[in-house]
């Protein structure tokens, strides 16, 4: 039995390697996406195109304006003198935000009356708008503190971000990316390998050999597991060495997590491939699974911000568990006991999907 499975595994590796298409699937997309995501996809907002609509040319107003001009967060790209121009510039996305100071601003500030500062934001990009608002608020806060360092302002909030003190979004993105790329590679390889054999007619040839369905599934599952391991380690390595993301967790725990994760994604790949008759259908199936699974994984948007029903959905999404777990291994040295809460659901998903695909295969034979 071992000899049979071993032959199958060797063959799987050989076909993967000798087929230029599958070689490409393993190597190229992860590399391209790694570079792309790490450098281009960032949540840090800098050089926001800011428009100024300043109707007051007196001293405190000019000081506030120069603070905005001096900030790296903003680039002043336009000056306005009427609301119509402001509206047009915002809707054409020439500016992301407009700072409006009314005619009475300086007078109000100097006389101690509440002074109004208006910030007009492009709400279509709500995420950016929120961040821009925060930047603007902190500039205003500084401005105010310097003008009136009154004792009653002594209650100050001092924030310190744990695990990512500089809010470097690479620290957030790259561990998640490790998970996504590993998921894509393992699911795709698994789903395609059976579908390809079905398309070429070699699957029937396998079924008439003494290989049992269990042995075929094992032989089909082990190679993508190995590839998933290598891929996860390479990407994690690049994240640490090239992009300086800290890895303070336990390496062994990381490997165990990858194994548990691979079992679950390969199970899903197996289910897809036991339904798909052609490689095209398999790719479509992978896509149908991956697109929502990535959106609901917490990779880009926090699960806690989702509506309840979709939070429930993330409970059957192995990518969500693994994204959470990988971030906590990288950044916070999570303990085995806490990691277990993310590990067992992945294992359960793996066992259920693998069993289901075995059942599907067996049923097709009847």
């Amino acid at each position, binding site marked *: 039995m071992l*000899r049979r499975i071993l032959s199958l595994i060797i063959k799987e590796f050989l076909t993967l390697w000798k087929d230029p298409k599958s070689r490409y699937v393993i190597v190229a997309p992860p590399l391209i996406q790694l570079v792309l995501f790490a450098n281009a996809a960032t949540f840090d907002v800098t050089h926001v195109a800011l428009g100024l609509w300043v109707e007051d040319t007196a001293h405190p107003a000019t000081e506030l304006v120069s603070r905005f001009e001096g900030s790296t967060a903003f680039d002043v790209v336009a000056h306005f003198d009427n609301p119509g121009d402001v509206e047009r510039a915002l809707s054409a996305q020439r500016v992301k935000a407009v700072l409006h100071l009314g005619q009475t601003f300086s007078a109000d500030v100097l006389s101690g009356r509440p002074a109004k500062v208006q910030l007009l934001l492009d709400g279509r990009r709500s995420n950016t708008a929120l961040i821009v608002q925060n930047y603007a608020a902190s500039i205003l806060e500084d401005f105010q503190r310097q003008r009136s360092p009154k004792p009653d302002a002594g209650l100050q909030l001092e924030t310190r971000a744990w695990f990512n003190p500089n809010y470097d979004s690479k620290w957030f993105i790259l561990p998640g990316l490790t998970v996504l790329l590993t998921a894509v590679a393992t699911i795709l390889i698994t789903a395609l390998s059976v579908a390809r054999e079905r398309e070429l007619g070699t699957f029937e040839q396998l079924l008439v050999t003494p290989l049992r369905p269990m042995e075929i599934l094992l032989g089909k599952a082990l190679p993508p597991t190995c590839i998933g391991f290598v891929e996860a380690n390479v990407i994690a390595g690049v994240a640490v060495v090239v992009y300086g993301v800290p890895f303070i967790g336990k390496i062994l725990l990381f490997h165990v997590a990858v194994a548990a994760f691979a079992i679950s994604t390969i199970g899903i790949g197996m289910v897809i491939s036991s339904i798909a008759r052609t490689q095209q259908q398999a790719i479509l199936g992978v896509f149908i699974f991956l697109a929502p699974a990535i959106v609901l994984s917490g990779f880009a948007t926090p699960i806690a911000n989702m509506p309840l029903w979709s939070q429930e959905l993330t409970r059957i999404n192995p990518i969500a568990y693994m994204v959470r777990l990988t971030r906590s291994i990288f950044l916070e040295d999570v303990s085995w006991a806490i990691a277990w809460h993310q590990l067992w659901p992945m294992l359960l998903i793996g066992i259920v999907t693998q069993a289901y695909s075995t059942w599907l295969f067996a049923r097709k034979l009847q």
Partner: protein
Amino acid sequence: MAPAAPPPAVVLDAVTKRFGKGPQATIALDHVSAEIRPGEITGLVGPDGAGKTTLLRLIAGLLTPDDGKITVLGHDSANAVTAVQQDIGYMPQRFGLYEDLTVAENLRLYADMHGLDEAARQERFHTLLAFTALGPFVERLAGKLSGGMKQKLGLACALLPRPRLLLLDEPSAGVDPASRRELWRIVRTMAGEGVAVMWSTAYLDEAERCDSFLLFDNGRLLASGSPAEFSQRVENRTFLLAVPSGSKHSVQRRAAADPAVADAIIQGERIRLVLKAGAALPDGPALGGSGAPQPVRPRFEDAFVSLLQGRTPERAEARTARPPGEPSAAAPVDGAAIEARDLTRDFGAFRAVDDVTFTVSPGEVFGLLGPNGAGKSTTFRMLCGLLEPSSGSARVAGVDLGTARAAARERIGYMSQRFSLYGELSVRDNLDFFSGVYGLDRARRRQRIEWALESFELGPVARQTSGSLPLGFKQRLALSCALLHEPKVLFLDEPTSGVDPLMRREFWARIGALAERRVTVLVTSHFMDEAEYCDRLAIVYGGRMIALGSPDDLKRRFVSDALPDPTLEDAFVGLIEAQGTQVAS
């Protein structure tokens, strides 16, 4: 006082078509010149990959030639495609029909595409439905029609705009003989009305029914003209040799090796001999036959094979090459090698196989013959454990497939029509893999792989990628992979469909040698030729086994004054007609 010949419908002038670029390019057609006359059926004959489909697509204007000129109905196909498109009816091999539409909807769709107006369309529908006898089925989904009916519908769609040129790409492949005859009748009538018909086929017996033929091999036009004249090339050189029962394989082998013989094949209980030009008739008993060889009318295939062998003498050698390997050491199986008892298989409400029972003895070559969709593949799949029967039982090599499938599989070799190999892997990797999954231990593995490389002459290509090999090598590799574990029973699914006749002969020589070593062979086919190699045949039609017997037995049942020497196809058609209305749906 012969009337002036009408101008040809198609003129091919040194037409060349390549696929791919540079040294990798495959030449699909190589300087082909020919004329197709109206009012005639011109057969495009040749194995798969010979260039038949490419030629039809070029004439239909779907491809443009790289070199040479095609004149279709008086227009240069390169710059006047649209001018003649309306006059061309093209029926591709597949995908011609929308399977989710009904018969009537398919016709209407094609009428729309050809811009037929309402009056013309009613008249055409009426004529064509009567013509094809599809009238009662207009509301049926095209996907639910039988293979023969699908082809007739495809033909009706191609005939809608009253084409002057009809291009048919393998219209009869996999169709039952009765429907095949009907297709011929319809097309014959069209030709009678002056339509130029091009009919491509891999069946050599169909070539004989054409008015003229173009014979292709590897993109080259090997021969053309009238089939009768072509067959006359081997006039007085074709004979049938009766053989004592049980010795046909050895006699065939001896005859094939005889220097005077160009071709020797098994035909029922006799050996068909084609002598080399000018060779003296060998002595029948000396070859192992009973009595002297009797002269017989030459066939198209005889001339084709003798032509191919004249061109490629080295391949003639391969055909007589020593058969594969040492005797199978397996102890003879007690009782039947294959036993099907009341095999029935339902797919939902549809009964694909209905109560099929037969037994095959060890060493027998047994054929399951029937058109596509008749149930032969379903039966075959149940017997090799790919499908579970709904009821009934299957035993192979003494093991019940229901209770001991894994044990049965170790005794089964399987080769499918598509030569299911791993194309990216080398020949050697494929052999390694299959010997591994059959669980051979290391010593045996090495020994069997060496055996395969040697006796199938695969040694020189062992390191090559199997997908890049010519068809003949692939076929040999597939067969050797199926034999690595020395199976007692060999399952062959349409093993030689679409290969050229020399390859088919080589293949069957190997199968014959295996049968002599008491390996049991079960083969499915819709090729009547292939069926002649079998010791016994089960004819499957409409899910049921309608006849069982040796090819000669089956033919003998239909001997009549009108048909003193019926072919297997005559017998098949006769059997189907005898079934009458029971399977008319």
